[in-house]
């Protein structure tokens, strides 16, 4: 375990906060997976199970006024940044009480009140949006940091290149977080580029880039935290982090997919062994841990009940929100 950068709190506070988030996200998605076969959730779900450490580690060092953008694999990010759980589950159920009134679905979670500025089903599109948001933040002299989350596959899109170039040209207060889980759907990184050198490419845009190995929530919190601090202290951006992580379940849907043969259980093993939910859980006193878990379990039950009980949007909702009323 890497040391915690000195902060005015005991590391156990930090551990329990991190654990609370990790556990919460994991359990929410396990519940989604459990419910999914009932077809109550009629929306493609791209679960983050296994990857929670990235969103949790990064958001641990963010403030409410900071802003994040994500991809369709946005559940962990949404929750880690403080997105409303009830509204999230209701959105998956297509209910009017959802964060997007049932008009977004699982791939477009948003909670602008908590700085979750949206997620796109089209790879690499929100990266440019995040850069634009960061430009505005700088122009408006706002004290906020913008963080763009995307997968390894997103780095192959032209939009990624154009966004990097502009963010670097204008020294924008944006942090790029590449969640490198080695795959784009079923295609391994090395089927899509000659070498695994995402950080080198980022450096070619004249930005500081660093790879964080091992799906390590503490190290992510530590390293991204210092980048966030330099931005807050007026240093210029951007920063780039490649966070190595691993998806435990299938690309989309609630199941495992080792039977497909594009990756092996052996490959997954070390990641599963080193599952942050377990490792961080171990750092907390069992009593405290159980307290955290039962509180989260209750909240999750409540959120699903809320979604179940909520009503579907009224027919007239079909026509609203195309343009300003």
């Amino acid at each position, binding site marked *: 375990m890497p040391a915690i950068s000195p902060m005015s709190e005991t590391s156990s506070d930090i551990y329990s906060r991190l654990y609370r988030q990790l556990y919460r996200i994991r359990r929410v998605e396990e519940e989604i997976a459990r419910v999914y076969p009932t077809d109550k959730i009629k929306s493609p779900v791209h679960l983050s199970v296994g990857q929670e450490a990235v969103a949790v580690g990064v958001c641990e060092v963010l403030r409410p006024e900071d802003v994040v953008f994500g991809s369709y694999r946005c559940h962990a990010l949404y929750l880690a940044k403080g997105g409303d759980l009830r509204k999230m589950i209701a959105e998956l159920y297509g209910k009017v009480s959802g964060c997007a009134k049932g008009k977004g679905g699982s791939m477009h979670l948003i909670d602008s009140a908590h700085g979750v500025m949206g997620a796109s089903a089209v790879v690499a599109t929100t990266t440019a949006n995040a850069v634009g948001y960061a430009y505005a933040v700088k122009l408006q002299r706002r004290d906020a940091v913008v963080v763009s989350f995307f997968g390894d596959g997103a780095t192959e899109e032209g939009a990624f290149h154009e966004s990097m170039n502009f963010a670097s040209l204008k020294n924008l207060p944006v942090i790029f977080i590449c969640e490198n889980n080695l795959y784009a759907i079923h295609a391994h990184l090395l089927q899509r580029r000659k070498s695994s050198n995402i950080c080198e490419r980022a450096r070619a845009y004249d930005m500081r880039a660093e790879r964080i190995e091992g799906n390590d929530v503490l190290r992510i919190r530590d390293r991204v935290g210092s980048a966030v601090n330099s931005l807050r202290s007026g240093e210029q951006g951007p920063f780039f982090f490649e966070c190595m992580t691993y998806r435990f379940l299938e690309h989309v849907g609630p199941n495992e997919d080792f039977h497909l043969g594009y990756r092996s259980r052996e490959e997954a093993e070390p990641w599963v062994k080193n599952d942050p939910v377990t490792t961080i859980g171990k750092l907390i006193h069992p009593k405290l841990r159980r307290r955290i878990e039962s509180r989260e379990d209750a909240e999750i039950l409540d959120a699903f009940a809320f979604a179940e009980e909520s009503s579907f949007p009224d*027919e007239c909702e079909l026509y609203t929100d195309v343009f300003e009323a």
Partner: protein
Amino acid sequence: MERKLSYVDAIREATDQEMARDSSVVVFGLDVDDPKAIQGTTRGLQEKYGPERVFGTPLSEDGMTGIAIGMALAGLRPMHIHIRMDFLLLAMNQLINVAAKARYMYGGQVHVPVVVRAMIGKSWGQGAQHSQALYSFFMHVPGVKVVAPTTPYDAKGCLIHAIRDNDPVLYIEHRILHFQSGLVPEASYAVSPGKARIVTAGRDVTLVGISYMQVECIRAQRYLQSIGISAEVIDPIWLSPLDIDTVVQSARKTGRLCVVDNGWTTCGAGSEIAALVAERLQGTRDIRVCRMGFAPTTCPPSPPLENLFYPNGRKIASAVYDLVNGTKNGWMPEERPELQEIEFKGPF
């Protein structure tokens, strides 16, 4: 010729036969060589023809489209596959500014035999960005051909034509149609532009259904039959070039035209067909027209809203009833289970 195949297998067979016949055919796109094999349409092709001729790509729609064009300029016949038509929006520059124009702006010195396979998604809350069918964009621009086969028979024949065509062809597949099965000759054959198909002959109204909406039009035809309205259902198959004559002749006979788009109606295929028919029949035959399609909104994932968003057999039947009787919401048929939508479980 009693062999039945699914739409998926028809596409796979067409591709296989053409790759065997012509070594210049190459197939690529995201996930083309993965375990899901693009709904099965590319299953086994890489094993058979090797990774040089069949391969998955990086996430680079624009670049790979330009690369496909370059391959075509060098004498290959590339097929570029997109699991969502929505992603074509990343490739518009190469498709519209280069592929559609190369033959012309180079005075005929080159041609670009590229096939772009694009899938339309529906349902299961795919929502805003996984539900669009933007074929009217490509009908608008000279230099690209557009086809949207609805039957397994046409899926095979149109793809074979598309591969052999010396100009760019956009080949549109609706994911629900992938599950249809029907008669498909094993021998190779081409379904070329020029002839729309009259699926069922009728007296009272001409029903044109595009892509998956063809299925809903056939349902509507059944509903209408039950109350004595005889609909002539036409499948245009090729949208560009479009066989408008068949539609015009039918409309001259029935005096009524209803076009059901599998997309938004504004500046859509339905607008074009309605305008052409009006231009062609004006002064000789007074006709009634009606266009249907997606609601003029973004596609919502919430099931009840999604149902409102799309036309279906009953809504079409009801609209046609009004067209025939000059009523307004004069009739809505009871749901008939035997006409139920093909059962499928998403997400697709």
